[in-house]
């Protein structure tokens, strides 16, 4: 129950940050996908099932606030969330550098999957946001690994 509430809080925080940044700067909001960040972190911290469900929830929220096919972002984020949790159990991604690389790879995977599916469905191609969308994996990796480190330190201090 506690894990579900933490995941729900993470999804709500992602939505709030997405809305706030869309108001402040459209360019910034195109180069940083808060939903993907939340999904990967939930997958890392709570496991593959939490990551999958969080991915579905975040993806469906993104799809309901965009025109186009409902379900594409959901598919991409569900897989990303699941794989983040599953791979992190088999490979040690706790050291900062590995964590940074892992989150970057998962964010790139989600972006590639979403763009691939969109390109199949939308004949006019994918909106690149003048190239800003390609910054997403980098920014997600940097912020995600910082947050992951912060959350782990916070948990360690509390457990003491």
């Amino acid at each position, binding site marked *: 129950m506690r894990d579900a509430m933490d995941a729900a809080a993470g999804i*709500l925080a992602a*939505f*709030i940050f*997405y*809305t*706030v940044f*869309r*108001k402040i700067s*459209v360019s910034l909001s*195109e180069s940083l996908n808060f939903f993907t960040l939340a999904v990967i972190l939930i997958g890392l911290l709570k496991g*593959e*099932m939490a990551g*999958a*469900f969080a991915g*579905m929830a975040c*993806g*469906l*929220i*993104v*799809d*309901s*606030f*965009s*025109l*186009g*096919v*409902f*379900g*594409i*972002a*959901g*598919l991409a984020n*569900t*897989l990303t969330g*699941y794989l983040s949790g*599953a791979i992190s159990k088999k490979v040690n991604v706790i050291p900062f550098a590995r964590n940074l690389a892992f989150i970057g790879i998962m964010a790139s995977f989600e972006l590639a999957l979403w763009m691939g599916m969109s390109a199949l469905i*939308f004949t*006019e*191609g994918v*909106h*690149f*946001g*003048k190239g800003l969308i390609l910054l997403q994996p980098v920014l997600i990796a940097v912020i995600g690994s910082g947050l992951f480190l912060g959350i782990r330190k916070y948990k360690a201090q509390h457990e003491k």
Partner: protein
Amino acid sequence: MPQIQRERRKPLVLAGLLVFQLILISLQVPRGEDSSYFERGIFFIFSPVQRGIHSLFEKMGSVWRRYVDLRNVEKQNREMKDELFRLRQENLQLRNGLEKSMAKQALARTLADVRASFLFASVIGADASNLYKSIIIDKGTRDGVSNGLAVVDKYGNLVGRTINPVSLGETTVQLLTDDNSGISVYSKDHRVVGVLAGDGKSGACWLKYVQSTNPDLAVGEELVTSSLDRIFPAGIRAGRVVSIGTDGSLFKRISVRPFLDFGDLNFVAVLTQRPDTLF
């Protein structure tokens, strides 16, 4: 449940989630652009959060304007008073001109209808995946908004039309720069009719279905809505022709720059009356 069974169940649950979303995607095909109840439900739950955040921003801005930035507020007030004076003079001259061709009572009725048909709204959000596709406004069904109403910006330029999902207090507006939009327009100078569609990528539009043998259209011409699609009233400024070319097909390749300014899209007006009742 033993650990091994739990581990075996996980890929099955993932497969179930993926199949569920594939079904959601497949259900879109017969529905076309109409949204499902599921999508509307999610929009209904989360759009008030956007509205709340927008209100918070507005309140913070209001505190700044009212108590801190008073010098600028005074300057803005003066400028707005001057503009209001100019607009009143212009309005008076236009009314005098119209009264020559219309009875006074009929004119007063028409102008009252026009005034009543505008529902002003704030833009509280944009499309989550592509900002040239749609925006969210803070008016919904309880304000009289429904699917398929024309939306203009504060200068009277075309923004797009309302589409589903429409919730109680929020509505999605499909922009004219969306690649799935199609608006019947004509050029003001030469009356060349075409369909304006967005490119969905860069905020530009294309004017489609103008035959390649048509010599009349020129670069720089203004395009306005024609009302042939029965959604947009006639005469709303849509864009200006930027370039005209051919690609060997039956139709010309005409690029159009819309008058819509994405950097200044905070307030819009929804035209709650349909074309045949407005003009």
